[in-house]
C-alpha cells in the first residue's frame, strides 16, 4: 500500500516514527509545539508525545542549538528546528565552531548525535533574508552531514536516517516543496545517508540537482525528450556524505554534465562536484561541464525578479539544448 502525502506531512511523519521508536528523541524550536511549526511541519507531535518531548523555545537560536548540543553530549538524541535556514547565521558559532568540531577536538571523547532541521530555499517571495539555499555553508565545514531531500518519501527516509545517525546532521527542508505531494509506502521507512538517486535515465546528458531543483530538472528532461534529447537526472539528496560513485557513473554513461543549483554561483555545491569530475572523469567528458545557478546576487522578493533569478525549467532546457548543439 502506498499513500499520497505532502512534503510537510512527511516531516511530521518522520519525526513521529522516530519519537515512537526512541524515547530519547526530542524536538525543540520556535513555535514547533503548540503551533505545530510556522510551516506546519510538526502538527500533532505535541499532542502525541507530550510537552516534555516537543517543546517551544524562545527566539534564541544560540540557546536552541547549544541546548541540543549539550543534550546530545548527555544522552539524548535531540532534533532542533531553526525556522528559516537564514537564521543559522545567528547561531553559526554553535554549528560550525562547536558542534562540527567537538568530536575531532576531543579525539572522539564526545559524540553528538543530533539533527538540525531548517526550512531552506526560495521561490516563495520572502526576499533575501528568508529564501537562501544554504546547504553550501554546512557543506564547507568538516564534521557536519548535509541532507536536502526533494520528495516526501525521501523526507521520511532521510530524516529517520539522520535521527539515527551518530553524527550531527543539518537537514534542509525546502520551503518551495512543502505543498508538493508524493507517494510513500506504509510502515517504517529508513533510508541511507550518502546515496544519490538516479531519478531518470537517458544517454545524452546528466543533470545533477538537489532539493527543489530536482522537480525542475525532471520537467526540463521531459521537455528535452520532446526534442529528442534523453537526459539522466540525479537527485544528490546528500552533499555530505557525497555519492560520487553514482555521479561519476552517470558522467561516464552520458559524457555531458549540467548542475542545477539554487544557490548563488560562487562556491556552490556544483563547484565541488565539477572539480571532482574534472579530476576523476575528465576523459569521460564530451563537452565542458556547465553549472546552472542563481546569479551571484541576493535573492529579490518580487515574483518576476525572483523567478528570473532562480534556475527555471526554461533556463535548464535552453542551456542543455545550446550546449548539445
Amino acid at each position: 500500500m502506498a499513500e499520497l502525502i505532502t512534503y510537510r506531512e512527511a516531516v511530521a511523519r518522520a519525526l513521529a516514527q522516530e519519537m515512537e521508536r526512541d524515547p530519547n528523541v526530542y524536538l525543540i524550536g520556535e513555535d514547533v509545539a503548540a503551533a505545530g511549526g510556522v510551516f506546519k511541519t510538526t502538527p500533532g507531535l505535541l499532542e502525541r508525545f507530550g510537552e516534555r518531548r516537543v517543546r517551544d523555545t524562545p527566539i534564541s537560536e544560540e540557546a536552541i542549538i547549544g541546548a541540543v548540543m549539550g543534550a546530545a553530549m548527555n544522552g539524548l538524541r535531540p532534533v532542533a528546528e531553526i525556522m528559516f535556514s537564514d537564521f543559522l547565521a545567528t547561531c553559526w558559532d554553535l554549528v560550525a565552531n562547536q558542534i562540527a568540531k567537538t568530536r575531532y577536538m576531543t579525539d572522539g571523547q564526545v559524540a553528538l548525535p543530533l539533527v538540525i532541521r531548517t526550512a531552506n530555499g526560495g521561490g516563495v517571495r520572502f526576499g533575501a533574508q528568508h529564501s537562501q539555499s544554504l546547504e553550501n555553508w554546512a557543506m564547507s565545514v568538516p564534521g557536519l552531514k548535509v541532507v536536502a531531500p526533494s520528495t516526501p518519501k525521501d523526507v521520511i527516509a532521510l530524516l529517520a536516517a539522520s535521527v539515527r545517525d551518530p553524527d550531527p546532521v543539518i537537514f534542509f527542508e525546502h520551503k518551495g516543496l512543502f505543498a508538493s505531494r508524493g507517494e510513500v509506502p506504509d510502515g517504517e521507512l529508513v533510508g541511507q545517508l550518502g546515496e544519490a538517486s538516479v531519478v531518470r535515465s537517458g544517454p545524452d546528458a546528466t543533470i545533477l540537482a538537489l532539493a527543489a531543483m530536482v522537480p525542475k530538472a525532471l520537467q526540463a528532461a521531459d521537455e528535452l525528450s520532446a526534442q529528442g534529447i534523453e537526459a539522466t537526472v540525479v537527485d544528490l539528496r546528500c552533499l555530505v556524505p557525497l555519492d560520487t560513485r553514482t555521479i561519476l557513473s552517470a558522467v561516464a554513461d552520458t559524457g555531458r554534465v549540467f548542475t542545477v543549483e539554487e544557490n548563488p554561483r560562487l562556491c556552490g555545491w556544483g563547484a565541488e562536484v565539477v572539480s571532482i569530475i574534472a579530476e576523476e572523469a575528465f576523459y569521460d567528458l564530451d563537452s565542458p561541464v556547465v553549472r546552472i545557478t542563481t546569479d551571484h546576487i541576493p535573492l529579490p522578493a518580487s515574483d518576476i525578479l525572483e523567478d528570473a533569478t532562480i534556475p527555471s525549467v526554461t533556463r535548464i532546457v535552453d542551456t542543455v539544448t545550446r550546449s548539445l548543439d
Partner: protein
Amino acid sequence: MNVAVVAGPDLDARLRVYRMMLEARRFEESAHQLFLEGLVKGTTHLGIGQEAVAAGFAAAMRADDLTFCTYRGHNHTLLRDAPPGRLMSELLGRSEGVCGGKGGSMHLTWAPTGAMGSYAIVGAHLPIAVGAAWAAVERGTGQVAVCFFGDGTTNIGAFHEALNLAVVWDLPVVFVCENNLYMEYTPIGSVTAVENPAADRAAAYGLEGLLVDGNDPDAMYETASDALARARRGKGPSLIEAITYRHGGHSRADPGTYRPDEEVRQWLARDPIPMYRARLADAGASEEQLGGIDQSVELWIEAAVEEAKAAPEPSVDSIATEVWADGGSQWRN
C-alpha cells in the same frame, strides 16, 4: 546582594581543597615554564590566582556532575580528576594528550570524569551547559551542569539566551562568572553597563544576585554547595559572580602592563594559596600536614611533566581520524 557567609567543611576536606589549589598552581606554572622552553606551543591562558573558584567548586561537585569551562580551563579540567600527565601531554601536543594533540590548551576535555570541554569562543558553552542540564532532567540523572566563564562573557548574546532558557525550563545548571576585572586587556567596568557584570544582571532572569569572594575557597565551596543543592532539589539555575584576579596577563602574548601596579600588588597580597595555607594553620593544621602536601605536590607535578616530555609525538596517521563516529573522516564514497 548576598555575600556568602563562610562555614567551611571539616579540616581534612579543607586540606584536600588546599592540595587541589596547589596542584592547579603548579600545573600552570609548569605549563608556563614549558612554554618558555618552547615545548608548549600556540598560546596559553593561565588561571593563576583564580584557583579558589575551581577548587571550591570541584570539591563540592558530585562525581557525575558536568563541568563546562573556557579556554582558561586548565584548572577546571585538572580538578575534575583529569589525569595530569595526559593533560600536560595535550599542552605539549603529544599522542598521550587527553585529546591526542588535536585539542591543545584551549580545548582540554576529559569526558570520563565529567570535564565536558574547554570552549574557546566566548559564550558558546553557556547554552551547551543548559542542554546538558536539560538532558539530566529528562533522563532523571540528578546531575548538575556547572558552567564557568569570565566577566567578558556577560556582554555577549549567548549569556542572555542561556540564562533565560535555563530559568524558563527550570534547569539544574550553575553559572559561575569568574570576574577577574579584565575583559582580555580592557577593564570590565569600562565596557559594562552595571558594576557587577553578572550579579547585577541576575534580576533580569528572576535570580538572586550572588557575589562571592573568588579568592576564598571556603566561601566558594559554601556557595557551590548551596547552588548545587538548590539545582538538585529542582529549584533551577543559579548565577554566581566570584570576584578574583589573574596574576598574569590575558594570554601568553599579554604581559598585563595595563594594570596599575598598586592594584596588582594588592591582589598578589590576596593570593588565595598562601592565604588559605595560613588559615588552615590557624584552624589547627600542622606544619607537617601542610608541608607534606607541599612536598607531595612537587613530586606530583614533576611526574606529570616527565610523563608529558617522554610522551611520543602523535602519528600523522591520526590526522584524519575522529571526524565522524565511525572513527574516520570520509565525506564521499
